[in-house]
């Protein structure tokens, strides 16, 4: 469980690390902690997986990739894991998830692909289809981005 202090640390870390000689000391000072205590806690967040990575996040990689398609697949439940892992191996796939089916929505695997053209996205999906033998799929191209923001936790 996260303590109130843990949540404060997370709030501070999402504001960005100060560009000063002793950045952790600055944050620790705000939280009534010692510099070493804060660094230790950050290390334990990394070890525990709450922090996936510590450092610079660069602007999203799809600069230059004008087209993105969410490719959705209807794969039999028995083969979903094996197929999901295969799809994840494709360099062109940035995200791959299994999600539930529901009424009017038969697709259970989701892969995001990026390309310089629509045709390129279509070709990538065909390549994945061929490799996995899965033929029941659809490409949902995005036509507009309505929102894109970083999550702010515990605010």
């Amino acid at each position, binding site marked *: 469980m996260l303590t109130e202090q843990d949540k404060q640390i997370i709030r501070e870390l999402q504001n960005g690390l100060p560009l000063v000689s002793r950045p952790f000391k600055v944050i620790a000072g705000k939280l009534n902690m010692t510099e070493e205590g804060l660094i230790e806690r950050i290390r334990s967040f990394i070890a525990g997986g709450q922090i996936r990575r510590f450092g610079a996040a660069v602007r999203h990689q799809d600069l230059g990739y004008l087209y993105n398609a969410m490719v959705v697949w209807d794969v039999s439940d028995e083969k979903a894991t094996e197929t999901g892992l295969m799809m994840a191996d494709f360099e062109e796939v940035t995200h791959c998830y299994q999600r539930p089916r529901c009424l009017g929505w038969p697709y259970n695997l989701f892969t995001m692909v990026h390309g310089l053209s629509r045709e390129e996205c279509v070709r990538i999906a065909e390549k994945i289809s061929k490799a996995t033998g899965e033929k029941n799929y659809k490409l949902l191209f995005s036509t507009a981005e309505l929102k*894109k923001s970083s999550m702010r936790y515990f605010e």
Partner: protein
Amino acid sequence: MELDSLDRKLLKIIQADFPLVPEPYRAIGEALEITEDEVIARIKNMVDSGLIRRLGGIFDSRRLGYRGALCAVKTDSDSISQVAAVVNSFSGVTHNYLREHDYNMWFTILAESEEKLEEIVSEINKHPLIQEIIVLPAEKIFKIKVNFDLA
């Protein structure tokens, strides 16, 4: 912005291997044989130019106890901006895209608990212009790509 070879090396270090020590910029400077001040100035340039979105922790929402789902709604093309305004008003909605499908608006929700997530979904679902909503939480995550290509 134009990156020289030193910027690229620096970017690589601060993306993949940021030193967790009291004086991180000095430590990076020692590795690159430049001063702490130069490290700070170069990072500041990359932040100001927008290349670096943020310097700090990249969190795993699930491990922080958050719950998330991908959602899709069907809405008339005339009401897209009104529906988007409602959907986007929730801070837990971080991404929202129009896509070519009957389910034409696709967005992600993150919330502090399962209950909060359901609350947001039901608030959105109340809107008279939304015809149908599907809620698709991830059951398995096979890949989330972390990209280092810029370095």
